[in-house]
């Protein structure tokens, strides 16, 4: 039974994770042991998962029915190309994050750490099982395991009221989403009764367009809530800053992708037919989410909130990719659908790597300085050389500049837009250039956000004196960051290899693939070389060659003398750290240009203030326009319901009696 080997391997890795979690609970008196032994071993299990994923990408689907679960409801697992691809993503990202965790969690109070070790590994287990589940029951159990364990991880510092609040918001939205997913599965079952809860039965159920659309909408809503699509994004900027950094990294890098996995699984695998307006809806939703996310990221002052909004933007881009895939697939443009699906999957992988890297990097900064507020950081490039170099890789990758990985997926997505003319529906056809423009705008704004992020934190003068004593990340933390930075570089330099592997997934989901994506392993050319090509390796070689040449020429022909002196700054004499832009200052133009979208609240000092104080806040209008009314309505309804409650037993007995009488009258 060699065919079963991958699933057995995954089973072993999961068992190891659970065992590690329990051991963490057992050895909770020794933080050192938990951090330095359990987390690295857990990281190895992640690596094993990634290797298994890579290995079984081209294999035929493997299924297993576990003798577990409720009576008559056994659990089904299945490993196909789509699951394998997301396993690579999960394993690759969590390997780096767990390595980082070994160093990061070292100083944690040992009791908390023991519990955290259990929750952390349960979280990983839950995410893995989501990818493998082959029936609705298993899927929901895994989904809830993932949601609950991550809730407990978010509220690790539960004595802080704000963190409890953030956790509650996360839990609430996660469950609203879960209900929608459950209902979606119910619809997809197609009324075939209890036996039809497996995904295989759903693939067989031929739904009418109406019910298929209902299932799709429910899935989009449910998974959208987890992914952070508009308007269900509000939990991200609250939960990410609250959680410990490695947890934020996993949530943003991997957990959001399980929602993308869910949408892909339901749309292209479980539902046998797609309708064009699903694509348009997803595309529009994605565009709004992307622009909204990046706009808000530009005005944030808290580094983790900034990254959370940037995750919203990236989820938007992924939804755009999915929307395009649906449109092309429905209109029978096989090659184009494969191209946009490839871009989507590639970007998922990229985002997992660079966002995890950036989040754990903020963890190192937090450890070194105790500050999340960018306005109190600055100049860390001198104190934290390792962190600053590795973070620069992440920043350039997420900003989408060649030759790193963020650019490749952006390039593929734009190519999909460029090839799109000729769709039969002219209205859909008109949407495409507008969407391409919006994507380009979001990508350019992302560069703005990242310059702000890196510049304010790492560059310039120290804004606080205490930063002088900031220390660089430890060995474990560096190793984790270095792994993720390396994957970013590798994914950027070897796009042909990656695209060839994504082809297996495209073949499974939409039946077409890019095929000969490369004329040559150096040149990425998704359609043909006459149409478009890009070679990051040659680009890197050319630019670094030119740089080397110039350095040598300048040294040889002139001289390399260098002196250091005070900064020039146009001869302005008094220079201090407070004269640099803060995070808020750097984001000010964006706030001004997109003013109607923000709810801005600011207090300006008058010129005569002896102790001038500036205070500014930019809030999300959606929170006030959508969430607060809903919460007020809920409170009012529950207020009415509480009229029935008095806490007196004879009244409750009366209710029971009246209910019984009424029922008797009817029946």
């Amino acid at each position, binding site marked *: 039974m060699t065919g079963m080997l991958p699933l057995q391997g995954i089973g072993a890795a999961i068992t190891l994770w659970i065992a590690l979690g329990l051991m963490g609970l057992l050895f909770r008196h020794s933080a050192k042991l938990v951090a330095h032994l359990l987390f690295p071993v857990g990281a190895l299990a992640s690596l094993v998962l990634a290797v298994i994923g890579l290995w079984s990408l081209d294999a035929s689907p493997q299924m297993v029915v576990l003798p577990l679960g409720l009576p008559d409801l056994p659990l089904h697992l299945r490993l196909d190309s789509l699951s394998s691809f997301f396993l690579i993503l999960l394993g690759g990202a969590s390997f780096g994050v767990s390595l980082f965790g070994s160093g990061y969690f070292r100083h944690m109070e040992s009791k908390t750490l023991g519990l955290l070790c259990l929750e952390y590994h349960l979280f990983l287990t839950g995410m893995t099982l989501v990818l493998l589940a082959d029936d609705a029951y298993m899927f929901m159990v895994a989904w809830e395991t993932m949601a609950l364990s991550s809730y407990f991880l978010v509220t690790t510092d539960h004595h802080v009221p704000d963190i409890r609040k953030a956790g509650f918001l996360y839990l609430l939205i996660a469950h609203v989403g879960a209900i929608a997913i459950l209902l979606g599965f119910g619809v997809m079952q197609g009324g075939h009764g209890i036996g039809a809860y497996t995904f295989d039965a759903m693939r067989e159920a031929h739904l009418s367009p109406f019910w298929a659309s209902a299932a799709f909408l429910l899935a989009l809503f449910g998974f959208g809530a987890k992914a952070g699509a508009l308007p269900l994004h509000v939990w991200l900027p609250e939960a990410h800053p609250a959680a410990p950094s490695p947890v934020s990294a996993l949530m943003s890098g991997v957990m959001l992708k399980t929602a993308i996995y869910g949408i892909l699984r339901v749309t292209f695998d479980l539902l046998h037919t797609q309708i064009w307006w699903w694509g348009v809806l997803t595309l529009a939703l994605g565009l709004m989410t992307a622009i909204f996310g990046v706009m808000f990221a530009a005005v944030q002052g808290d580094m983790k909130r900034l990254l959370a909004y940037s995750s919203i933007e990236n989820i938007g881009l992924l939804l755009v990719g999915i929307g395009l895939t649906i449109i092309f697939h429905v209109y029978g443009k096989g090659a184009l659908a494969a191209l946009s699906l490839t871009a989507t999957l590639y970007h998922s992988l990229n985002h997992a790597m660079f966002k995890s890297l950036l989040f754990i990097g903020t963890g190192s900064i937090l450890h070194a300085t105790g500050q999340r507020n960018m306005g109190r950081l600055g100049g860390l490039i001198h104190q934290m050389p390792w962190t600053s170099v590795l973070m620069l890789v992440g920043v350039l990758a997420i900003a989408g500049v060649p030759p790193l990985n963020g650019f490749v997926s952006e390039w593929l997505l734009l190519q999909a837009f460029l090839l799109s003319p000729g769709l039969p529906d002219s209205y859909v056809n008109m949407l495409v250039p507008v969407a391409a423009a919006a994507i380009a705008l979001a990508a350019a704004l992302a560069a703005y956000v990242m310059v702000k992020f890196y510049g304010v934190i790492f*560059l310039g003068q120290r804004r606080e004196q205490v930063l002088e004593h900031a220390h660089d990340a430890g060995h474990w933390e560096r190793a984790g960051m270095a792994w993720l930075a390396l994957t970013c570089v590798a994914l950027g330099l070897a796009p042909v290899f990656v695209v060839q592997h994504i082809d297996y997934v495209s073949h499974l989901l939409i039946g077409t693939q890019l095929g000969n994506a490369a004329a040559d392993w150096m040149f990425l050319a998704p359609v043909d070389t006459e149409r478009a*090509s890009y070679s990051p390796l040659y*680009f890197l070689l050319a630019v670094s060659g030119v740089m080397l040449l110039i350095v040598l020429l300048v040294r040889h022909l002139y001289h390399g003398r260098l002196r250091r002196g005070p*900064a*020039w700054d146009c001869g302005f004499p008094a220079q201090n750290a407070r004269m640099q832009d803060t995070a808020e200052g750097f984001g000010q133009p964006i706030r001004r240009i997109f003013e109607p979208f923000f709810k801005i609240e600011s207090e300006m000092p008058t010129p005569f203030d002896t102790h001038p104080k500036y205070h500014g806040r930019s809030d999300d209008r959606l929170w006030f326009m959508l969430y607060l009314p809903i919460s007020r309505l809920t409170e009012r309804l529950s207020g009415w319901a509480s009229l029935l409650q008095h806490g007196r037993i004879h009244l409750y007995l009366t209710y029971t009696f009246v209910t019984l009488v009424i029922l008797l009258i009817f029946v």
Partner: protein
Amino acid sequence: MMNNSEFILAIVFQLTQLLLVVLAAPLLTGWVNQCQAWLQNRSGAGMLQPYRVLHKLFHKDAVIAHNASWLFRITPYIVFGCMWLAAAIIPIIAVDLPFSGVADVIALVGVFALARMFIALAAMDIGTSFGTLGARREMLVSFLAEPALLMVLFTASMISHSTQLPRIVEALAHHQFALYPSLAFAALAFVIVLLAENARIPVDNPSTHLELTMIHEAMILEYSARHLALIEWASSLKLFAYISIGIALFLPHGIAEVGNWAGLPLAIVLLLLKLLAAGAGLAVLEVVTAKMRIFRAPEFLGTAFLLAVLGLLIHFLLGT
């Protein structure tokens, strides 16, 4: 497919262009400055002035601030490398450029973005008020200019069914007398982007150090000697690259097509004339317009963005 000897010839040609652009770029800057001087009734410093400035700067000892990091020191080299590569892969004399496959038009925009990110980061590195001000304004200008440029390039790509610059040029050069309404909008947008991205009036002013108005100059305020020389040279290369893109997209006629080596001399003469005309045109534009307030710049660039998107929409509507 081309055969071996043709391939070698193409490589030789590519290397020639590589050398040519890097040597000729300061000349174009000098020409623009000289035209401006004439228009302003000055005698001007001569077209060779940029070379003298570069020579002088290379000779000086570099002085950098006490707290300058490695990022500050490598940025000039990265920016120069990016701009050189960008200028070298744009087909302006002939379309056989083996390097062109490395980066298509989208990647070309990416190369500009890479250089811009580094220079903005380097500007923030010293932590002076002007440095961060420059970086902020530069990113502000570029977040509207970059998508506008991308849309212009998209319009051209849609017409020619390719994002490869040589293919675009070939396709556009072939349709000698066809008039594309979409390209007209794109051309207008492109001129605005060119002005903004090359720090020209009305968005920025390359010849001022007045704190309220400067963008690009504010970013490179802390650079001196060889670093400054490389950045100035890179700016010249960038201007050269942008004008080359403009010529390639909107005036490609007369370029030597694949295998047409006989057309090469004519192509070179034509290119020279086009460059002279473009430089003079730029000087006229700069002389007759006034610098606008920084907060008008987003509106100006927003116009470019909308024009470019309109061009693309028109292409979709008319199908040409």
